[in-house]
């Protein structure tokens, strides 16, 4: 392979004048984490609401939940981001559209909300499956104790369901981290974006991508290890994953 390797490139100053190439990549890493965390919060909130809707006995509620999930699952994430970023401001009344377009950090907020809503459909499916996996007796017992439907969900069904779906939620969180890289297309310079920028400035393609790869792997290892501890401490006694 006739390629000029230069691993010292990371410690050379980058052309933006602020620190080295390594600093560039680290700032991308931080932005990736920040975007992913905000997106994950949005995904959890909306995913919980829609997941509950899907599990309610009411036909209308579960139909709304079904439509929500189908809407966000049947379009590529990239297209959804384009809709939020390019199309939404044009369809709003001109004042609101202008305000959206002039928002500082627009790519960041669009990415967090877009990825968050995209992932919320997946969280909703997982949560609905988790609630459905609970024995029917739990809901009945809650009713027999005089709990309202809301109380039953708040104190019985949701705490159980969330503890059961912890492992799939971990991989959904990792998907959220990976999906933030799609926001490169609306101008968010996160980790993949910074690696690409470094490649364009320095021509050291493979060093730049290797560094980004290592950073993504590191995120994965940290999250998986952390979640394993959390899963163990939250496992429900008596279930297969429990003690």
């Amino acid at each position, binding site marked *: 392979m006739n390629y000029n390797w230069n691993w010292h490139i990371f410690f050379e100053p980058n052309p933006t004048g602020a620190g080295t190439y390594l600093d560039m990549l680290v700032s991308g890493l931080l932005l990736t984490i920040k975007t992913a965390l905000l997106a994950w919060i949005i995904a959890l909130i909306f995913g919980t609401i829609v997941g509950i809707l899907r599990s309610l006995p009411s036909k209308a509620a579960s139909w709304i939940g079904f439509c929500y999930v189908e809407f966000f699952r*049947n379009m590529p994430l990239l297209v959804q981001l384009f809709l939020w970023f390019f199309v939404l401001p044009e369809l709003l009344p001109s004042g609101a559209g202008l305000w959206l377009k002039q928002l500082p950090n627009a790519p960041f907020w669009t990415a967090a909300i877009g990825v968050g809503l995209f992932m919320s459909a997946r969280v909703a499916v997982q949560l609905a499956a988790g609630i459905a996996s609970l024995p029917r007796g739990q809901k009945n017992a809650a009713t027999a104790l005089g709990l309202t439907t809301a109380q039953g969900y708040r104190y019985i069904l949701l705490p159980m369901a969330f503890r059961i779906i912890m492992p799939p939620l971990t991989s959904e969180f990792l998907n959220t981290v990976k999906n933030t890289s*799609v926001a490169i297309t609306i101008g968010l310079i996160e980790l993949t974006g910074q690696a690409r920028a470094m490649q364009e400035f320095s021509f050291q393609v493979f060093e730049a991508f290797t560094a*980004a790869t290592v950073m*993504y792997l590191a995120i994965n290892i940290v999250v998986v290890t952390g979640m394993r501890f959390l899963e163990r401490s939250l496992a429900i006694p008596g279930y297969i994953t429990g003690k």
Partner: protein
Amino acid sequence: MFGNLDFDVIRRSLPYLFLDGMSFTLMLTGLSALGGLIFGTLIALMRLSGYKLLGRIAGLYVDFMRSLPLVLVIFWFYFLVPYIGQWLTGASRPIRVGAFTSSLVTFIMFEAAYFSEIMRAGIQSISRGQPAAASALGLTYAQSMRYIVLPQAFRNMLPVLLTQTIVLFQDTSLVYVLSIPDFLGAASKVAQRDGRLVEMYLFAAAVYFAISCVASYGVRRLQARIAIVR
């Protein structure tokens, strides 16, 4: 709010969008699914082969691919494929690789990791007695895989494989980052040329939505049919 929109731009660009863009997308989806399934099955067989080293290598590959974002993998292969081609053909300099070949290699390698997990689950769902019966009948390992295990694993996993192919169909839109005119890329080219972002992106979203909806409805029907048979 739709006052100053010109939806005629869609009609004018329909031939380009579908003959060039959508045919690229569908071709890439189909060939990547096929290649990903073949390589994925090989990887799954490696993991279940019982040879520790082979299994370890296959496992590392799958974990590695699954922890990287597709956009980064697309960039990786875009720059790497010319060097791989040089290495394979023994040429003196990195060879020129077309956009289609480059993205096809990317998606096959990436999807192989995901398909292999599905096939692994499928193979593991076959009861142990079947390969044992096959070897009692005098079938070799290859024959028992070919005639007994893989056909059943493939059939049991067909709905999951198809669902993954729908995800793949949506993911091919990410070749946009290489400015390749797939369906979304074509829509975006027209959008930018004519200054009609709203119309073109709404149309692209509607087309992706319709195709994915119909396809996943078909998968649900198929799943129901298979469930009755088993």
